[in-house]
């Protein structure tokens, strides 16, 4: 039986990788993928605690997070494609139309 702290540490590692990719990479699709990675890290924490306390609510909440992530993925990728059509770039430094 693996203690839950290992799962929490793995979740922290995944979240940190997501944070690093979010700040380092300049391609908007990579930024998007790092957001998905961070969501998954939080889901791992939920499942770990749900398993420790034998709670069903943890899995229910993971399910809701997944649905929200799916909706976010669909809308986000549609926005990315629309932006690419309009600006023909994916670099977040060059998509600065709303900057003052």
């Amino acid at each position, binding site marked *: 039986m693996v203690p839950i702290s290992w799962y929490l540490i793995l979740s922290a590692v995944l979240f940190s990788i997501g944070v690093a990719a979010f700040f*380092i990479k300049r391609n908007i699709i990579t930024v998007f993928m790092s957001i*998905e990675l961070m969501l998954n890290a939080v889901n791992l924490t939920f499942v770990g605690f749900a398993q420790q306390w034998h709670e069903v609510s943890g*899995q229910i909440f993971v399910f809701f997070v997944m649905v929200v992530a799916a909706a976010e993925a669909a809308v986000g990728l549609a926005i990315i494609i*629309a932006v690419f059509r309009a600006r023909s770039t994916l670099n977040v430094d060059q998509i600065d139309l709303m900057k003052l």
Partner: protein
Amino acid sequence: MTLRRLVHCALALTVAFAGLAALYLNLGAEFAGLAQLLVYVGAIAILIVFAILLTRGDDTAESVFSPSGLAGAILAAAVFAVLAWAVETSGIVHPAAIPAAPPEPMRSIGLILMHRYILPLEVIALMLTAAMIGAVILALREKRPQPEQIQRSSAQ
């Protein structure tokens, strides 16, 4: 994250999703594991790959070891340090012996989802439908000329 090509990043992310699904199944959470497998490995990975293919030709080579990259790495290391410190010092993760109960079967998850969480379920279904319609409207841009083009052509 450090891979150069975007497609390799997406494939690595898919492998990570599959590994997480295996971890959920290992933890006894069949519902979450199978949902992860269906939603992430099945749907979102394909969606990301399609987005990469549709936005081809923008493979800007970027170096990870730039000043801003160093700042991001330091920030991520700080986040990890705080999280690891919180995990190690909290008393929750080293509990007194919790009686081992059998893992919750799928049936109880379905019953609870249909009884106690029926309103959130309906709300999230509505939100997902709205998001899908919005995504289709955003992605399928109509072939009408833009308003400034109309004005320009009428001025000529």
